[in-house]
């Protein structure tokens, strides 16, 4: 069999997202990564819920299941438990994953079954035409919040940490150089990998991430963290993150102006849980960069392997099962009724 090209991972259906939607870029990165890594179509399963992002399985030439609102992690869990050989991906959005399906996402992350959950966060309900979502910024005016929403938005990465996720990454839809390796690392991770993609909805929330994506100014508002590397960012690589002296908070510093050198900066440790919490929250206040890359990664017991302990080492034949069942049924007290017994 010849190696598959990115286009081989595309199904024959026309992609029907709005022109300019950030989803196109994510789909492209996914196709490329799967081709590069030598994935097989038949062993790849894409599961989704409801929403714009959840249409993605239709555009994949792999197996796919477009399910019901919020439930994709549960359906994916059942499929993966039944067949551990499958490479299972869940595609969800901020509404599907964090609102109607929040419970399933929480428990999927906590269990750590080997699969990837990619959450497209566009901070809006797109498919139902523009209502605010659980990640919409406070004060946002939408058809269901004409006076501006008064709700506190949810931070997906922080939610994932709270749920006990062992792999948390964040990327921007169009930054293939960041997103591609994250998707690859997510696939390689033995456990549930959670990837938040900051995704632009061109119709209902256009430009909400422009300041992060801007080719010129974006680097001043984002930092791509890498394990073992000092936390330097900015257009001129002149900003950094350190622990504030005498405090337990992160401090955004200017390398020249503050008399701080690179040696004073934090070095990213993706296994540091407390650091991951702090990194996930950065960007919520003015002057803070939004953190991209792999925020947290820690190997832990994978749910599927743990839950298979006690199953037969190889599948039993029908005959073996019936013999075992007969014995099990007779493990409680039995008695004979017959000519002798009666």
């Amino acid at each position, binding site marked *: 069999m010849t190696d598959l090209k990115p286009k081989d991972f595309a199904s024959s259906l026309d992609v029907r997202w709005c022109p300019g939607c950030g989803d196109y870029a994510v789909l492209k990165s996914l196709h490329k990564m799967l081709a590069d890594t030598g994935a097989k179509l038949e062993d790849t399963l894409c599961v989704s819920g409801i929403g714009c992002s959840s249409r993605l399985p239709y555009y*994949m030439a792999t197996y796919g299941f477009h399910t*019901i609102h919020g*439930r994709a992690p549960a359906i994916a869990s*059942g499929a993966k438990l*039944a067949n551990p*050989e499958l490479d299972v991906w869940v595609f969800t959005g901020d509404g599907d994953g964090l609102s109607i399906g929040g419970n399933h996402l929480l428990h999927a992350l906590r269990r750590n079954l080997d699969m990837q959950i990619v959450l497209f966060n566009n901070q809006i309900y797109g498919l139902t035409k523009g209502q605010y979502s659980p990640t919409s910024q406070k004060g946002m005016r939408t058809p269901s919040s004409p006076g501006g929403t008064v709700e506190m938005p949810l931070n997906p990465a922080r939610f994932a940490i709270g749920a006990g996720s062992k792999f948390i990454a964040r990327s921007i839809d169009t930054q293939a150089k960041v997103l591609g390796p994250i998707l690859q690392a997510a696939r390689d991770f033995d456990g549930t990998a959670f990837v938040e993609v900051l995704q632009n909805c061109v119709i209902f929330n256009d430009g909400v991430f422009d300041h992060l994506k801007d080719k010129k100014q974006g680097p001043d508002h984002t930092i791509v963290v890498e394990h073992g590397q000092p936390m330097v960012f900015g257009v001129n690589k002149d900003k950094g993150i350190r622990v504030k002296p005498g405090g337990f908070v992160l401090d955004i510093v200017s390398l020249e102006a503050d008399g701080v050198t690179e040696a004073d900066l934090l070095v990213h440790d993706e296994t540091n849980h407390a650091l991951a919490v702090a990194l996930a929250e950065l960007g919520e206040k003015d002057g803070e960069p939004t953190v991209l890359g792999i925020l947290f990664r820690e190997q832990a017991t994978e749910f599927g392997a743990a839950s298979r302990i006690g199953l037969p080492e190889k599948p039993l034949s029908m005959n073996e*099962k019936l013999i075992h*069942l007969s014995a099990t*049924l007779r493990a409680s007290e039995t008695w004979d009724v017959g000519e002798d017994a*009666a």
Partner: protein
Amino acid sequence: MQSGLERSTTTHELPVSQQPEVDYVRVRFAGDSGDGIQMTGTRLAESAARFGNDIATFPDFPADIRAPSGTIYGVSAYSLNIGHTEVDTFGDETDALVALNPAALRKYLEGVKQNGLLIIDIDAFTERAITKAGFSANPLEDGSLSSFRVLPLEITSNTEKALKETGLSAKDARRSKNMWTLGLVLWLFERSTADVEHWIEQKFHKKPDVAKANIMALQAGHLYGEVSDLPPDVSRYRIQPAPLMEGEYRSINGNEGMAYGLYAGATLANLELFYGSYPITPASPLLHTVAKLKELGAISFQAEDEIAAICAAIGASYAGHLGVTGSSGPGIALKTEAIGLAIMTELPLVIVNVQRGGPSTGLPTKTEQSDLFQAIWGRNGDAPLPVIAPAHPGECFDMGVEAAKLATRHMTPLMVLSDGYIANASAPWKLPDFNDPAYEPFPVEQAKEPEGFLPYDHDPDTMARPWAVPGTADLMHRIGGLEKQAGSGNISYDGENHQLMTQIRAQKLDAIAKSIPPQHVESGPTTGKLAILGWGSSWGPIRVAARRAELEGKSVSHIHLRHLWPLPSNLEELLSGYDRVIIPEMNNGQLATVLRSQMDIKVESVSCVKGRPFLVREIAKIIEDALGASS
């Protein structure tokens, strides 16, 4: 009770039970939640079943885990009917009540027949306990029990005395009073204590002190019966073994039978069983039983909620296992959207609903059969779903097999309607012989061949679509909850196609209707004056009442539905052969409404929603009212 859906065609009939205390004895143990009542009842049931009696049991325990002691609502009871004839119910009345405290006596005295036997632990009748139970005076002294035969015993102090030499504290010794009581009751039935002793040794093999104390208490109770001068009106029961069909037996309750049956069904389909569930009364023992089958390859998954439980089962079915989920009415309500997904994606899936009183949270520990509408019609869209129902605990195993067979053969979700009574009641059960043609394997053929593969192509006989499992080369396809183009399975919003797919989903049930056995008559003539039509756990009382009435020369037939949706194709013709068709149901007339919508036949409904099965005399009254006392 006879076993089995398929096996029931070769019914071996036991004689009809008629004379209480001659043919059968109904005994009820009642005491505080912590008194070990359920264990005592279960042991007597096992012992009687081993002796060869037919039995029917009814555990009745409070929804509270440890209700305050001495209260009415904290009373736990176990009712048991022991017969040398066929017994199908736990009995309308009690022949002998064992009351271990005043609250137990107060709660269950009403059910004791005139001149019935009361075995009472007088040690528990302290002034405080009597008041707590709501008696204004001590019932043992105020003459209020004069219409019963009372056997007042110092059960607690007798137990303490019997265990004095063990060195146990009085408090620990008192915990064995249920075994002392059981010993006495075994004596009353002319049974030895050997079976129970054997069981105690096994159960407490890691705690030899506990085993020894329980056995000593058991023997002491038995000896008490032997050597004491009991009142002359206390006579022993002599219930001979019932002429059961030859074979190997055990006792089983409905939840156990269902769990084992589902495993057997998945096995005969050549599939692995995946059981996704969320704990709920009274369905949780299904999860517990499947969890114990792990060594046999069964996967159980306790999900975060009811929705995730069914969704995981759907995912497992998509990946090639037999997905099963179980719950009770409120949980089924939560699963509804996912059931629709399984219908749309035409995946095999078994949903077990162990019904309880509703609506909403309703009566968690009380039985009812009021989820029939929910099962048949409770979804958005035209969403047909086959529904089957076991009639008694001994049928649950075969019903699990039937569920797996229909779901895989027709590629459809299917609902099994059990109920709280069937789930908890136990009966002697003839163990299955897997060489019996009823257990002929029905191995599933999953799609492998890419040539001409269309995921939504339908087999004209079964209306099944091909089951192409992820991991299979060259059969990659996408499914989901949006309407499918017939054949390709691609999304389609086309009106003509939706009409076609709606028909295809309906035809799936037509195909099932053709494959299920024609409706048979349980007892009585195949045409006549009166048919009592039932489904689910009303089987026992209807059967007893109808057979007794027939013996009295009445023209009455019992017809019992196992396949509720689609209905057996001969049902209308069969029912039209009777002058009257009456349907007693533990709901407000749901089957009657369903039948009225489906056939041009007048059916009458009798409703009973009191959290318990019908009584035999209630069904007998229906028959008598319909036919007159002498017809």
